[in-house]
């Protein structure tokens, strides 16, 4: 059974239909990149997967959870599905360590000592062990984003979602975050990422999906897709990306 199964999902904001029947399946351990212009529906699609956005019709199943808007089921789903946002969204009143320990403590009742060990482990994984007692405000954007990834990892997710996680970062900080994500991918994490980093999609993602006007316009193994885009829309998009 695939880790993520999306079947004919439709979503509208009022009269504006942003997802027009999206179907997609992601196997365990796969990395899938969603690319496309702003407004193509890729972020909305990603946010539907952990229930941050409701959808009108279709079906999504993630790590054995059916996605709907029932609060209890959503909480169970979110214990298994992590998400990292463009704007990091660390809790500014808590230290890095507290940010990471909070959710395992309160949602999974992990004992304090175990949560502490877990926090140190995930923080080491993103290379920020020395920042355990720092507050988010005192970290660079790249460091904050790595902490946000560590915070998600502490929940031991089966699937990780990344929503344009490097878009708010300076180019020199982007690299350190991508490196952490690449390590995760190699470690076998199932990942879906919305990204503008074409090189990363091409080199790290197994499959890339090009979304256009609320639909999956073109999809395939990343290397092939970037080497031989079939549709004129993707050809234009790849060309525009290469010029940047």
């Amino acid at each position, binding site marked *: 059974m695939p880790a993520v199964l999306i079947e004919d999902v439709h979503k509208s904001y009022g009269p504006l239909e942003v997802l027009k029947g999206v179907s997609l399946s992601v196997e365990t351990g796969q990395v899938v990149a969603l690319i496309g212009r702003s407004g193509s529906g890729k972020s909305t699609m990603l946010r539907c997967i952990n229930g*941050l956005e409701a959808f009108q019709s279709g079906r999504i199943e993630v790590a054995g959870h059916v996605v709907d808007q029932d609060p209890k089921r959503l909480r169970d789903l979110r214990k298994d599905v992590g998400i990292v946002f463009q704007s990091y*969204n660390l*809790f*500014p009143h808590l230290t890095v360590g507290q940010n990471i320990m909070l*959710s395992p403590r309160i949602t999974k009742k992990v004992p304090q000592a175990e949560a502490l060990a877990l926090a140190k482990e995930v923080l080491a994984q993103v290379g920020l062990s020395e920042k355990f007692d720092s507050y988010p*405000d005192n970290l660079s954007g790249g460091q904050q984003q790595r902490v946000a990834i560590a915070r*998600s990892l502490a*929940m031991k997710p089966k699937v990780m979602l990344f929503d344009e996680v490097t878009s708010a970062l300076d180019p020199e900080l982007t690299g350190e975050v991508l490196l952490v994500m690449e390590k995760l991918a190699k470690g076998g994490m199932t990942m879906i990422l919305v990204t503008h980093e074409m090189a990363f999609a091409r080199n790290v993602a197994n499959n890339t999906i090009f979304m256009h006007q609320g639909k999956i316009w073109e999809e395939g193994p990343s290397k092939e897709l970037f080497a031989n885009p079939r549709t004129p829309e993707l050809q234009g998009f790849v060309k525009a990306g290469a010029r940047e």
Partner: protein
Amino acid sequence: MTTFGWPEALFLLRAAGWTLLLTAIAFLIGSLIGGVFAIMRLSRIKLLRRIAATYILVIQSIPVLMVLFMSYYGLSLFGVELPPFLAASASLAIYVSAYLAEIWRGSIESVPFQQWEASASLAHSPAQTYRYVILPQAIRISLPPTVGFLVQLVKNTSIVSVVGFVELARAGQLVNNATFDSFRVFGLVALIYFAICFPLSRLSRHLEKVMNASRPH
């Protein structure tokens, strides 16, 4: 006719104690009610939002003096005789609750909505989101305006003198009636109010500066 001396000054100081007590009680009870209304005002349930909004609108639209008259004189028509201190505390608590509810609603709303999303995405329940993520940030934001409002409250307690409760302002009137030394009597009354309010105002100012300096972004 007596002259204004130490016994009269001490009488004023004792009355200032009542002013402080009244402020404290009104603030504490008003905080509890106001906190509940602030959260109701932001509830997902429409009925709760409506009830809270109506309460806040009604209380903010009538003078606290009328609430006081209703609870002191009005209730006595129905045979409920509230002692002045109780009527005064209750009226002021109601007044406080409506204002704090709005101050705190604003504070909660000024926590960026991404914090709600991040918290929900980590499988926190709405109660856990409030407890661990939103309220700690909202309380920081709310401190300067809350302390600022407390200053208003100290001064506005003088209104309860009209139902015969002897707090600082009423005590000033009584001493003045006995001594006719208006300038010194009300001068001292004003000085005592100032001595209470000035440090609070400074605290509010200070908190505002500290919060601005340490605000993220």
